[in-house]
């Protein structure tokens, strides 16, 4: 992909992460990495968002919150699991209050590895999700005109 056709808005939710990935997600928005120059904005409103970025694993208390946020987002939408905790539970997988990766609740489109995931990796994940968003949109159009 040489240019981006769309500037996705991001909704960030912290599952039960240790903060490491959260501050790296924020770091990718600030001057050194600066994805805002491509129009990628961290929004607080799920209705405005295209991509749901989740850091950290899910537990019984935040499963309803994650589901509710996802359901509020408009189609097409993608889910990016940032960091090893969001992927599988990571170092906390054996903890009693950790259900597991985000894929236990939602269908995840992109997994970003790392503990903590580096901003470069987070940006890569978002770019990948952008491609998936495009495919989803094409599929939606097909369904519409059938």
């Amino acid at each position: 992909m040489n240019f981006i056709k769309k500037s996705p808005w991001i909704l960030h939710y912290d599952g039960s992460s240790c903060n490491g990935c959260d501050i790296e997600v924020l770091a990718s928005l600030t001057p050194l990495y600066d994805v805002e120059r491509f129009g990628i904005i961290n929004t607080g409103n799920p209705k405005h968002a295209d991509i749901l970025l989740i850091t950290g694993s899910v537990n019984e208390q935040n499963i309803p919150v994650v589901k509710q946020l996802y359901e509020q987002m408009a189609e097409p939408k993608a889910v990016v699991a940032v960091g090893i905790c969001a992927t599988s539970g990571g170092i906390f997988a054996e903890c009693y209050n950790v259900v597991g990766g985000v894929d236990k609740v939602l269908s995840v489109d992109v997994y970003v590895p790392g503990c903590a995931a580096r901003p470069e990796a987070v940006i890569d994940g978002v770019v990948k999700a952008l491609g998936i968003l495009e495919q989803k949109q094409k599929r939606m159009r097909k369904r519409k005109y059938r």
Partner: protein
Amino acid sequence: MGNRTVIPFGPQHPVLPEPIHLDLMLEDERVVEAIPRIGYIHRGLEKLVEKKDFQQYTYVAERICGICSFMHGMGYCMTIESIMDIKIPERAEFLRTIWAELSRMHSHLLWLGLSADAFGFESLHMHTWRLREQVLDIFEETTGGRVIFSVCEIGGVRKDISPETLDKIDRILTDMEKELKEITHVFLSDSSVKYRTKGIGVLSKQAAFDLGAVGPMAKASGIKRDLRTQGYAAYGKLKFEPIIETDGDSYARTSVRIKEVFQAVDLIKQAIAIIPEGGINVKVTGNPNGEYFTRVEQPRGSAMYYVKASGSKFLDRFRVRTPTFANVPALLETLKGCSLADVPILILTIDPCISCTER
């Protein structure tokens, strides 16, 4: 008296990087009471000591929180070292101090940026985070990681910093100081920033003492409590004075944190000037047996670590009490009587680290 309304705040809110839920009881625009609900990021990592042995647990301790990760690792290692009666090399003590103070700088700059974002000063937020990246670059060069380093181990540290790199750090910090002065000047003297912070969320000295506030929260209310004066790691060999403000409002708390950034720069320079030669770690044999209690001054205040071991590879009990946990009652006190629009800045003013609080 107006009608009472309950407004839910969080768990997902633009101003909060982490989830915490508050029920705000409002009378018109005034907050009468705030009821917190936590538990969104509880993992139960204290119980993990039963599944990971005490050496492996260093990595878990570092992941209690990603912002003060180094200090959590250091606190845990110090506790185990005290139980096992290990004397770590002096150079390791100094290296730990340097990394700890760099962590303090990065944490306070992060907070300053977030608070600028909370009162709507976007460009100030970006500039603070730009400066913070320089600290992260030092981390990356010396440890290999940006936020989680895994450089502290039981018996010392895992990596050494060469004299050339130490000189370089000194130079970077000297350059940074000038830029820091420029940015912090805005926080302390810009009239619109002052309007948002001066006289907002006042916590009296007595209230701060009674509610057990720690760190910048207590220092801004005039309580002189800084655990670094105990002299753990290399702090005993460095000269510094705890920073105190007396107003107890958001402005005073900002000011304490800004002064601590400059203090950290000074402490790192002092440490670089007198760091001794020598090894960086000692070999650890056997298993810990006994119990110990350590206190460490983190960017957010005092953190306490308790370990109980009975001679096996696995610890019996690990307990950590983190600064944000101690500051939540003080936050609820400051929220009483404030206007709804000031709630985000007041929540940020305690520098909340929810993943520490809930572990």
